[in-house]
């Protein structure tokens, strides 16, 4: 379990706190989508979660240990794929030989499977790769470390068109009940079908942290009927689509973009709906 407890953080030059009394819990078996506007602090939160930044107050624990202590047992069980990164001038084989020993559950077979899925060669020169290829190779290594926590910042940025579908297969295949996967993204349509939890943050608060199953029970995403009062509406070729309180009967498909917009526009109403007894 990853637990963010009463976190306070700001960058020295910024006037306001990016996080203040911010708490969040991530549990094994969940594929979490972390959504927030530009500047909401998604990447900062990720660095705080992985012990790369120090909170001004509060703490982040992973399996009970403060991540800021950077204990070997913590670092060997978490992996971060940042949005942008450089790879060393090595072949993939050399890279794996140097880095895999830090991760006791690393599986060579898994990595080969993921590389195949992304249609990548098994051994490549890392410096000769394009940005998208680099991402595919690095993510294959990351998931094959089989760490209990895998965090990816904007993983579909820079992927080609087949790459987005390959990415969904990759996550669906590599996810197991003893892992936590957190994906921070703006390209929510790329990944919404593989998420089972959604976390929406804004103004140093968690506006929503719910399983997709719960969202589909609490809210309905469908055409608006006359007289209805949706939380959020959006015009489309099919007419006016809205986010409505769920009627507890037929479940509709969760539209993550509409959920995000509805939550940002009406956080109180959404909060109320999710805290009702069902």
């Amino acid at each position, binding site marked *: 379990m990853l637990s963010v407890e009463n976190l306070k953080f700001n960058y020295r030059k910024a006037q306001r706190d990016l996080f203040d009394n911010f708490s969040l819990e991530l549990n094994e078996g969940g594929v979490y989508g972390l959504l927030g506007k530009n500047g909401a602090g998604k990447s900062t939160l990720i660095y705080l979660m992985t012990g790369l930044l120090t909170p001004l107050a509060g703490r982040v624990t992973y399996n009970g240990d403060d991540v800021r202590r950077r204990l070997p047992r913590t670092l060997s069980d978490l992996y971060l794929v940042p949005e942008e990164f450089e790879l060393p001038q090595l072949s993939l084989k050399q890279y794996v030989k140097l880095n895999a020993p830090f991760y006791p559950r690393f599986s060579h077979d898994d990595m080969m499977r993921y590389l195949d899925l992304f249609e990548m060669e098994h051994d490549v020169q890392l410096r000769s790769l394009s940005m998208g290829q680099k991402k595919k190779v690095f993510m294959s290594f990351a998931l094959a470390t089989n760490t209990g926590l895998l965090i990816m910042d904007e993983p579909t940025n820079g992927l080609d068109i087949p790459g987005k579908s390959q990415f969904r*297969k990759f996550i669906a295949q590599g996810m197991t009940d003893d892992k936590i996967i957190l994906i921070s993204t703006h390209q929510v349509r790329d990944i919404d079908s593989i998420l089972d939890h959604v976390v929406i943050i804004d103004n140093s608060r968690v506006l929503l942290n719910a399983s997709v199953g719960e969202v589909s029970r609490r809210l309905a995403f469908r055409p608006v009927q006359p007289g209805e009062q949706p939380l959020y509406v959006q015009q489309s070729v099919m007419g006016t689509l809205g986010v409505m309180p769920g009627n507890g009967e037929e479940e509709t498909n969760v539209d993550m973009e509409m959920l995000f917009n509805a939550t940002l526009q009406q956080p109180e109403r959404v909060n109320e709906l999710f805290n009702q007894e069902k």
Partner: protein
Amino acid sequence: MNFKDNKAIYLQIADRIGDDILAGRLAVDGKVPSVRELAAQMEVNANTVARTYDYLQQTGIIYTKRGLGYFVAADACDRIVRQRREQLMQGEMDYFMGQLRAVGVTPDELRDLYSDYLASS
């Protein structure tokens, strides 16, 4: 895999499996793909497929053998057809009838249209 906008994805996947059973691509007493396999194939979360299988089990279309996975029930085809008939009669048919009335199609015309359709296909 592309999904329609409105219907919950786990139900759309259930429809797909129903199609596979009716078309004989999944045989009676044959094993259906594992949750993880199907999740990767459909590019969805494993929990979504788990819900699909729960639903199919509740409706008697598949059954589980402990430790071995899910299998297609002997009367799966009958059940699927019955279920789809009910859904059609309650849902789409109602809308369709409304449209027919709105544009003034008479019962006789409808009967002829349907007879022609059956004869030509």
